[in-house]
């Protein structure tokens, strides 16, 4: 036949349904009228004529049904009827409806919340042109313990000019800019980039232009580009902004462009303005290669080039270069440290730290959803069992099994859709709520969009990213996912009762009914395995959450090597215009520290260029005089910082040997250096380091070691000892700097001291900003955010999972007790005591829990391998965690069994048996 044509016809009919129906009735009526008229002509009386006509036409209903059937509306009508029946069923049993829809709503809502983050961070491509060709590059020196260092300036020029595999490449680095002049200086997070940065990403200015190539050279005007957020906030989105000037770091800068609102850089989401990186000829020269690996690099692969090909090309480039510069010895020294350039897919690199935690959370909420579905499936299964006699009756009266299936499915889909609606509602309500709570005035005022914010959620522990999460919730992908969840789950929990329906000979329902419904074995098995499955999944979640919690506790317990409590910290910045030389900088900090130390309650105060857990990282190579490198040993490049007298006292860093800096270690005195225990042991194991001479890459004079201090953690409490490359300290009185952080200790010092400190700064120079003020222990806490947030979420999910599993157990046992009423009654009549009955039910629960735990344990064995890299200081199969998880779960299950068990003991044998 012509299926297409018929389909089209039916479709048309579907839309003109009302008219078609009317015409059908009219046609039928006219048929009967004509027959009646003929009958009258044959001499019948009017009454009989009409009756005969009707009889001849036959069943009006059958004709209509046949006609409609042919018309093809039957499916749609029956579906509507199924849904109506489903709605009716839900309304008839509101508590059942409430429980199922709420369970589904909460679990789907959780899923959507996590999925919207997963989607924006992991699934959506980076918001740049042809993001698949974007790569990030790192210098790797595995031989000297540095797997991934950033890049240096000569790297940029080499890779840009001599490499074919890169279409374009750029350097960028986060910065802080002092905007404004006089006493109205605002500290603004910024971005410094090479002019090639925007072409590399394929970003064009929304207003004005991006940077010109020559703006990378020293001299000339200072151009600046604003982000959309900063432009709107500070310049009221003025259309005439391009060409205006603002004062940055004491210099006049010209606004040359505004970025589109969509621009965001996931690693620097807070950046408000962008300035070009300016390089002197010395910085660009090949002599400078290898040091100052301070810049992030992003590149665009040439079309058709793979990351591996680029790596190979870079490897030969550097080998040739080393030979060019230092001959065979140069090549050998590169090989010694195992140097190579690592090329990574940009998206993968930017999401490296959050990928696993996010996937873990996604897996967790999926389990929670499954457990919730199992509960609903069990409820529906129980109901369909209870309705078996009804169904059998209907089947006997001619309802096809398909009708019954559709009825169950109609109810399931209705539940699924309603649950989905509740879930979407919950997700979109909860996400912004979390976000608003966590909003802090210093961050999140930017136009930085969802992906970047979502990254913040896990990398910095703030839930502020959720503030944007609600926008993510509107994306098409999230919508499709929620529809898929709603329908998928409803089919899941609809299918189980349906399968059960099909596996039964409905006729037995009559006999069972007649015999008073002894419990159906097969249904018991299905119920039981569903509960065991729930317990298994809940166990998996509990163990995962437990391992994460222990890891977090372990990380929080790590001794950073200093005492972070009661230490106020804040950054200052001196512009090079007002403080052009070392003398001016030194005298500013001399005077500032003098007045801060005089504040009431201050026990110790100092400055540092590298605040622990202040998200800055600086390394410099050092060479002890007369030190004979071991064979194969490469340069040691420890962290370094410029501090002031009193620094080690303010942070309570232990001094193992010698002394710390003093005011007298001035510019004219002997150059002194303090090293940490790690360096001392590395260079002079078993001997004193005091008095040793050390050479640094700048200046000619050597530095004398005057002290050895405790090794401290600088940015990550969970970093392994092997990651540590030592640290050394210089004094600002000998090496002045303009960007110092203040550290102020006092017994009762808290953030409120910021006002007094700010006043002290302003008294000296109102143009110097004090920013990023925080207590030091708060910074440490923040650094644990990437562990805390997933851990808290996972614990919450595990708790929900356990609760749902307990509810599921309760439901199944309560049902089973109701079904076994007769058996219980007989047992009691035969002399069983209530305690025996109680034990019987409890045994059933414990049995289910045991099977579930066993299955869960097998799952755990698979899971731990996968999450191992997220753990810290805890064995993947930590016996304590396993034991506690098993105990919590068993306890919950037994608790859930108690109520049904006690109900079983209260069965009145006489009454129960009399009911038969």
């Amino acid at each position, binding site marked *: 036949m012509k299926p297409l*044509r018929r389909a089209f016809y039916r479709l048309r009919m579907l839309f003109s349904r009302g008219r078609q129906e009317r015409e*059908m009735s009219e046609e039928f009526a*006219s*048929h009967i*009228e004509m027959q009646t008229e003929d009958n009258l002509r044959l001499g019948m009386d009017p009454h009989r004529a009409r009756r005969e006509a009707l009889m001849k*036409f036959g069943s009006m209903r059958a*004709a209509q049904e046949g006609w409609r059937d042919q*018309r093809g509306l039957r499916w749609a009508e029956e579906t509507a009827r199924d849904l109506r029946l489903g709605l009716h069923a839900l309304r008839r049993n509101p508590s059942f409806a409430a429980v199922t829809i709420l369970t589904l709503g909460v679990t789907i809502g959780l899923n959507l919340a996590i999925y919207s983050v997963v989607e924006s961070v992991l699934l959506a491509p980076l918001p740049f042109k042809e993001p698949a060709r974007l790569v990030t590059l790192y210098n790797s020196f595995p031989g000297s313990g540095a797997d991934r260092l950033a890049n240096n300036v000569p790297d940029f020029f080499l890779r840009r000019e001599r490499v074919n595999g890169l279409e374009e490449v750029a350097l960028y680095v986060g910065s802080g800019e002092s905007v404004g002049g006089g006493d109205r200086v605002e500290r603004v997070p910024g971005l410094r980039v090479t002019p090639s940065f925007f072409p590399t990403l394929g970003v064009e200015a929304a207003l004005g232009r991006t940077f010109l190539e020559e703006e990378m050279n020293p001299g000339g005007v200072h151009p600046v580009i604003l982000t959309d957020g900063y432009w709107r906030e500070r310049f009221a989105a003025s259309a005439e902004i391009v060409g205006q000037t603002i004062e940055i770091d004491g210099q006049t800068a010209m606004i040359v462009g505004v970025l589109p609102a969509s621009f965001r850089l996931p690693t620097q989401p807070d950046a408000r303005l962008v300035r070009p990186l300016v390089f002197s000829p010395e910085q660009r020269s090949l002599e400078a290669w290898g040091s100052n690996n301070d810049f992030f690099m992003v590149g665009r692969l040439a079309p058709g080039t793979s990351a591996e090909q680029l790596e190979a090309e870079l490897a030969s480039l550097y080998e040739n270069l080393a030979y060019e510069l230092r001959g065979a010895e140069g090549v050998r020294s590169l090989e010694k440290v195992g140097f190579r350039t690592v090329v990574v897919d940009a998206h993968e690199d930017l999401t490296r730290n959050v990928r696993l935690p996010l996937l873990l959370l996604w897996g967790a909420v999926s389990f929670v959803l499954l457990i919730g579905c199992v509960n609903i499936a069990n409820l529906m299964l129980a109901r369909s069992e209870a309705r078996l006699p009804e169904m059998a009756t209907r089947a006997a009266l001619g309802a096809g099994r398909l009708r019954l299936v559709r009825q169950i499915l109609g109810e399931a889909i209705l539940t699924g859709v309603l649950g989905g609606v509740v879930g979407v509602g919950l997700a979109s309500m909860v996400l912004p709520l979390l976000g608003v709570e966590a909003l802090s005035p210093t961050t999140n005022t930017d136009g930085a969009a969802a992906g970047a914010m979502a990254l913040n959620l896990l990398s910095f522990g703030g839930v502020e990213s959720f503030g944007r999460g609600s926008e993510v919730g509107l994306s098409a992908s999230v919508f499709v996912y929620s529809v898929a969840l709603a329908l998928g789950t409803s089919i899941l929990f609809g299918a189980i009762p349906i399968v059960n329906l099909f596996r039964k000979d409905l006729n037995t329902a009559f006999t069972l009914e007649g015999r008073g419904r002894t419990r159906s074995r097969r249904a018991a098995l299905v119920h039981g395995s569903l509960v065991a499955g729930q317990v298994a999944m809940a166990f998996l979640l509990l163990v995962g959450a437990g391992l994460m919690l222990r890891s977090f506790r372990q990380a929080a317990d790590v001794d950073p090597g200093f005492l972070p409590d009661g230490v106020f910290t804040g950054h200052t910045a001196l512009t090079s215009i007002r403080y052009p030389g070392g003398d001016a900088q030194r005298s500013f900090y001399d005077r500032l520290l003098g007045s801060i130390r005089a504040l009431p309650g201050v026990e110790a105060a100092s400055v540092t260029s590298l605040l622990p857990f202040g998200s800055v990282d600086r390394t410099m190579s050092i060479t002890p005089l007369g030190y004979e490198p071991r064979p194969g040993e490469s340069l040691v490049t420890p962290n370094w910082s410029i501090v002031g007298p009193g620094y080690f006292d303010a942070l309570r860093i232990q001094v193992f040997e010698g002394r710390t800096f003093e005011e007298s270690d001035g510019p004219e005195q002997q150059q002194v250096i303090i090293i940490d225990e790690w360096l001392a042991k590395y260079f002079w194991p078993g001997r004193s380091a005091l008095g040793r001479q050390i050479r640094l890459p700048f200046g000619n004079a050597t530095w004398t070691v005057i002290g050895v201090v405790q090794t401290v953690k600088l940015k990550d409490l969970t970093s392994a000892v092997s990651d540590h490359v030592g640290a050394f300290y210089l004094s600002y009185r000998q090496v002045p700097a303009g960007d110092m952080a203040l550290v102020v200790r006092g017994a009762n010092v808290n953030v409120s001291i910021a006002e007094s400190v700010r006043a002290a700064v302003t008294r000296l120079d109102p143009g110097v900003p004090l920013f990023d003020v925080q207590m030091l222990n708060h910074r440490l806490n923040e650094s644990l955010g990437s562990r805390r947030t997933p851990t808290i979420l996972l614990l919450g999910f595990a708790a929900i999972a356990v609760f749902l599993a307990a509810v599921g157990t309760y439901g199944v046992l309560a049902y089973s007790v109701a079904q076994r009423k007769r058996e219980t009654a007989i047992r009691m009549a035969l002399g069983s005591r209530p305690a025996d009955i109680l034990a019987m039910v409890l045994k059933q629960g414990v049995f289910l829990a045991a099977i579930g735990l066993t299955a869960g344990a097998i799952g755990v064995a698979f899971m731990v391998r996968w999450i191992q890299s997220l753990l810290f200081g805890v064995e993947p199969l930590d016996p304590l965690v396993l034991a506690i998880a098993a105990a919590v779960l068993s306890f919950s299950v037994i608790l859930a069994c108690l109520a049904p068990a006690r109900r079983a003991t209260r069965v009145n044998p006489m009454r129960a048996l009399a009911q038969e």
Partner: protein
Amino acid sequence: MGTKKSSDVWQGTLSIMVLKTLHMLGPQHGYGLARRIETTSGDLLSINQGTLYPVLLKLEQEGSIASQWGNSENNRRAKFYRITARGRRVLELEERGWERTNEIMARFSRLGEESQ
């Protein structure tokens, strides 16, 4: 299942009768068709004339017949059906099929008679 098959046969038979009638007598309304079929087929359609209508709808969906509202000889509004070119082709094919079936059936009956 069994009833469905026989109703299919019934529908098929009725379809051919409808097409044949329309082919021989020209446009007819439903009642007229029912009367004609009743007279030519004996008692086959003397009851349950209503079952004709799903068949008419099916034929119309396939494009074998077309319908139009008009006035009957007694000036009563009725829906008139006429056979289309496509319907004639279908009729021809069906008739040929039936003839062949009849032939074969006849041969089988003869076979039975001969063997007796």
